[in-house]
Every structure is written in C-alpha cells, then in structure tokens.
C-alpha cells in the first residue's frame, strides 16, 4: 500500500470504477461455461453477465442443468446465490450437490407470476446466477424489460424457453438451442450471438450419467442412427 496513487490508475482498482471523463468501460465480464468447445464459440469466452441468455429446448431433461453446472458451481464457490425460478419438476438435492452446486446458496422460487421475482432478482444485483423457466406466454416486451433489468445483474442469467420461441425475435444477445446428441452428449446450436453465425452445432460431452459399458450399450448402431435423425431434424 506504499505506492503513491499516481502510479496506480484509479480505474484499475475495481472493475466498477471509472473516471468521469471516461466512458463506462463496459468490460464484458463473462462466466466461463466450463466447456472449452463452447467457450471458444461464445463471445468473450463464456456465459455473458449483465445480459439474458436464452436456452431453447423441446422439453426438460436434455442435460441443461449439467450444461450449466460448472458455471453454477463457480458462482456458489464465490459465495453468491443461485436462484431457480419455476423449475419444470422437483429438483433433486443429491444430484445438484453432485454437480457441484452449493445447496445452502441455492433457492427455488415457485409461484404463478414469476416475472416479478425474476425482474427483482436481476435488478437487485445481489444474485450470483438466475435460471428461469419461462412460461409459454412470455412476451417479447417482458423479455425487453428483463434484458434491461439484467444490466445490473452481475452474473449469468438464463431463461429457458420452449423451442418454438426460436421463430420469434428476442432482445437477448445470446440464444442457444439445446438438443440431445446421444447419451451424455448435448448439441448446442447458437441461434444468435454477437459475432458471425455458426452453422454447425457445438457437440459437448456432459458430466456422465452412464458408466462406460452402459454408454457403449447406448451407442449401438440403432441408437446412433436415431440421434443422427434428431440432429438433422434440428438443422
């Protein structure tokens, strides 16, 4: 602490600090997703903070929590809370703990109107990460409100929507469509990102559910054929 302040520019003290004559640096802080293949394709190299990320999937259970788990675990390890708003089924504590989530900082919110808590959580800036399962009736203007609220949210914010929403425009800067790609694997298609479009889905190996032998069994030719069909249907 002996260095005079002239040697250390003030704005380097803290990311939230800038001088009045500078533009807010808006340094795009990101939360690494934990998957190198995905990080390479995401702008900034991870899940964006202060913005909504849309995840589109046909139904729950593709491996969406396993996809987010490394980022959520990191949020919990940093001592910040994780909010699950309107999950599609009962979350299993043991599975979440195994995926590395800190359960003491993990809170499930249920209710009829989840837009209010979602907006409040984003606006408060006190939550580490938010995952919200949006009702089918979520309107574009509500998303715009959420996107605005998310600007004070320091952490990733995921809104899980039905795949049919892909046809409608969205203010979220990052939109991903998730689909299965065989056992313990996920195909992530980047529908929208800040950057060039990406044609091919990113294939990710998820934290495994199956043992090695079980995976071999699941990968018999019949299986691979069907998963390929699923893929081509996506594309």
């Amino acid at each position: 602490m002996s260095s005079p302040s002239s040697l250390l520019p003030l704005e380097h003290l803290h990311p939230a600090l800038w001088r009045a004559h500078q533009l807010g640096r808006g340094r795009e802080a990101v939360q690494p997703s934990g998957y190198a293949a995905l990080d390479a394709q995401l702008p900034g190299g991870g899940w964006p903070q202060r913005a909504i990320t849309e995840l589109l999937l046909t139904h729950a259970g593709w491996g969406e929590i396993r996809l987010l788990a490394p980022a959520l675990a990191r949020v919990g390890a940093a001592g910040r809370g994780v909010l699950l708003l309107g999950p599609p089924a009962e979350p299993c504590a043991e599975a979440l703990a195994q995926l590395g989530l800190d359960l003491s900082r993990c809170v499930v919110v249920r209710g009829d109107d989840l837009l209010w808590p979602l907006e409040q959580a984003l606006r408060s800036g006190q939550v580490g990460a938010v995952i919200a399962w949006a009702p089918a009736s979520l309107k574009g203007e509500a998303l715009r409100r959420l996107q605005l609220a998310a600007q004070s949210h320091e952490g990733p914010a995921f809104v899980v929507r039905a795949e049919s929403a892909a046809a409608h425009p969205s203010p979220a800067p990052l939109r991903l469509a998730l689909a299965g790609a065989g056992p313990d694997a996920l195909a992530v298609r980047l529908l929208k990102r800040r950057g060039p479009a990406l044609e091919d889905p990113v294939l990710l190996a998820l934290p495994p559910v199956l043992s090695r032998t079980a995976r071999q069994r699941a990968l018999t030719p019949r299986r691979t054929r069907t998963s390929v069909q699923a893929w081509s249907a996506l594309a």
Partner: protein
Amino acid sequence: MLWIGIHLPALSLESFIATLAPEPAGEHEAGEDPDDIDRMHDNVGPVALIDRHRVVAANAAARECGVRRGQKRATALGLAPHTRVGEADAARDEAALMAVAHVAMGFTPSVSLGGDHVVLAEVHASLRYFGGLPRLLQRLRAELAPLGHALHLACAPTAQGAQWMATGGERTDLARTKAEWRARVGAVPVTRMAAAAPHLATLESLGLATAAHLWKQPRAGLTRRFGGQLLADIDRALGDLADPRPMLQPAPTFDSRLELFMRADDSAALLTGAAVLLNRLTAWALARHGLVGGFELRLHHESRRRMLDDPSARTTVLEIGLGEPVSDTAHLHSLLRERLQRLPLAASVIEMSLHCHAITPGAPPNTELFPSAASVGEGWHRLLERFEARLGAHNIQRLQPVADHRPERATALRPGTDTTALCARGPGTPLDLTAPGGPAASASPDPAHWPRIKRPVWLLRQPQPLREQAGTPLLGGQPLWLVAGPERIEAGWWDGGYSARDYFIAQDNDGALLWVYRFRRAPEVGEAGWYLQGRFG
C-alpha cells in the same frame, strides 16, 4: 456538561398530520432548514388543531386563509371550509415525542424530557465518539429527519438553559465564557419560563421582562410573591444550583399505535400510516442499540354489525419476521408494502398499532463503497425476504439432501429465508455425497470426466405410469431403451412407506436419458408395470 435541547415547535400539528392520508409527514425532509417550519406541511392543505373548541395550531395553508390561534372552530371552518380540523391529543403528542427521545438515546444514555415538547440530551461523554459537536449535531439531524418534525436545536452547559434556548429557536453555538452564558440566560424572556406562567400579568406590570430583570431584584421579595421555583430555575440555568434529571429508559418492547383520521381502504393509505410507525420502531431500535428481527402490525377495522359476533375479525394481524435483523426503515417498509398489497381487507382500517419484541443487540453494518462478501450476503437475504413477503413462505424453498434412498424422500424443502446452516447427513449415511464444493472444485476441469451422476436432476412429483409393449416401456408412443440397471431401492419397511423398486436408466428415441422403475413384485391386473420417475436434466 453539554446539553442539547431538541425543541419541536409544531409537534402537535405534525403528529396530527401524520394520521392524515395521503401525504405523510414522514416523507418530507425536515431538519434541512429548521426555521421553515411550515414548508413541509404545505401539500396537505389547510389543517388546524382544536383544543376545547379553540384553534391552538394551524399550518401555513390554514393561516393564509385567515385561521388564527384562539378562533372558534366554527370561525375557522367559515374562513377555510376545507380545513381538516383535529382534536389536540396529548397522548399522540407524547408518542411522537418519545420517538424523538429514542433517537437521542442512540447518541447518549442521558436523555430526559423537558416540558413544552423539548427533549434534553447530555452529550458531553459522546462527543469524541461521534467526532465533535458539529458532526454529532449533523448525525442527530439526519437520524431525526425521517420522523418529519421541524426542529430547534440548542446547545447549553445546563439542562434548564438548553430548555430555554431551544424553545427560543435554533442556537447551537456554545457560550465561551461564563459571563457570555450569563448574558444569554439574562436575555431569556419570562414568557419562556414555565414557573412564570401563572404570574405573567403581574410580572409585566412590574416591568420584569427577562431573567436579568428578575435576578436584579431582591430574592426574598420575589420568592414571597412568585414562589421559589422561578428563581431556582434561573439558578439551575446559570449552573448555580444542582439540576438532577430523571433519565429515560427505552421500553423493553415496542408498542405504538396510530389512530387514522380518515378510514383507510387501500394499501397506499395504510402504508403512509405504517411508515410513521416504522420510523418510530427504528428510532426505538436505535435507542436499544439493536436490530429489528421482526414485528407485528395490527390493523383495527371499523366495526360493523356482522363483526360484533366475532371480535377477532375486527383486527387483522400481520406478522413480519426477518431472516437477518436490520435497522433499515426502507427495507422494513418494502417488506410491509409487499405484504399489504396482497392482503385483502375485511373492512376499512381506523387504527393501526405496531408491536415488536424481537430485537437483536448489535451494531448496524457499516456502509461500504464497494460491495463486499458480507454486503452481498445481506442483499441476498433481503431479496429472499421480499420474495417471501410477496409470494408466501411456501413458494421460497431451499433444498436439503436427506439420508433416504427413496427419491421422493431424499430431498427436503425448507423455507428460503431459514438461514440456519443446512445440517449434515447423519451417521449411517447410505449414499455418499460428494464433498462440499463438488466435482467442479475437486475433480478434473473437464466436466466430461466428472464422477458419474447417480440421480436425475428432475424428479416428477408423481411417478408417471408408462404403457408397455412386449416388456418394453413406452413414452409418448415411442419405446424406451434400457441402458443401465437395475438398481434396486428397497426401503421404508420401518416407517410405513415401504417400497421395493428396480430402477433403470432409459434412453428415448431422441437420446434423452430418463429414470424409470418397475416394482419388484409383479404388477397387479390393470396396474402399470413401468413408471417414469425423473429426467436427467
């Protein structure tokens, strides 16, 4: 000795205005400009206070219409028909004055009430802690501001002197010498002296207008005519006579009530009244040097005929508990707003009272320039409390693993603001849970090499029966392919929830993994053979 006298020149009027909707006195910034007493009451319209059929106080709007002290009620209403006329209420004034005394108790334990709406506080011992007299006065004003009273602060070396100086107006500069102080006391007019009140006409005819005039007279003669109290007060003001004062103690529990001038039918009107009570509550917490851990708001309804049978229906009780005790009125107010907004009112509210006995001793947290871990944790708790206030406690859940093999019993849900540490699994734990921090902290950075996840993230509340075709379960008409299993879970013979199931991991046509089971025993006729328990999310 250094006494601060806090005089509230318009206390009666202000405590009445606080009961009016929609503009509560609590929202206005008092204390910025203590001389401008009336400015902050401008937007409530003309208001006058009546005692024994005579106007005793009127705000600026009423005075502009010509309402004056001493007028009859009918005269005042004739001059300004819109005037809201209230009865003076000594108990109401005292409750408001007590809140001011509570704030002062946050600064010093030596607080007493002088007459005539003056609170006296001896702050000499607190000067160093608060960084000197100007800073202490500044903080005192800031703490008093939410109560919304016009203030006159005066500093004096004696309690009696502080009382007289404060009632005379703002006077925070200290007398440097004894002679200077003597001159100031000498200039105090007899009209400010409580002991002189019965003799004002005599004193005036004798030409005795100030304290200096009095002490120049022969003491024996004055004492014979006016009693000993008058001269004794002057001696106490000068410091020549001891002046012990009984010190106030904050009550062990907080109870305050507010009678509303108008019936309140909506949450906005209730909130304005509740804001007054909440400000008093935090003042009391300040006096106790504690944090509020919860409170109870009782709404007393207008009695109606159908309620006569059921006295309990006349009162609505709102209990608000906090996960983390706070000293912050704004947070309490936001919690109350969420609760009141979704509270159906049985009838109009005519009175409300606030009760609090849950106080935790402790210093309020420091305010910080940058968010630290502690302040983030606090904000997180406050957010959950707001959710709980609006959505109900049952909608905010924390998950806790339970040492039970049966998936429907392996997760316990607890209210979200329950901050007690999630207890560890007991001895004889049947399932080994990864160490805290999980695989992300311990195992390889590549998630694909994490240890096997043994349970699905999503469990169905009710297992879904599956149709069956040639021994293969069907979901949505598509066959499921069993890829791992069976894992037998047989438990619960000791608690009546006996189940014996064989679990399999199945894969559907699209490649998603499901958790399905069948009973160990053969299914009965008409019973499904396979059930869907969960999905590997």
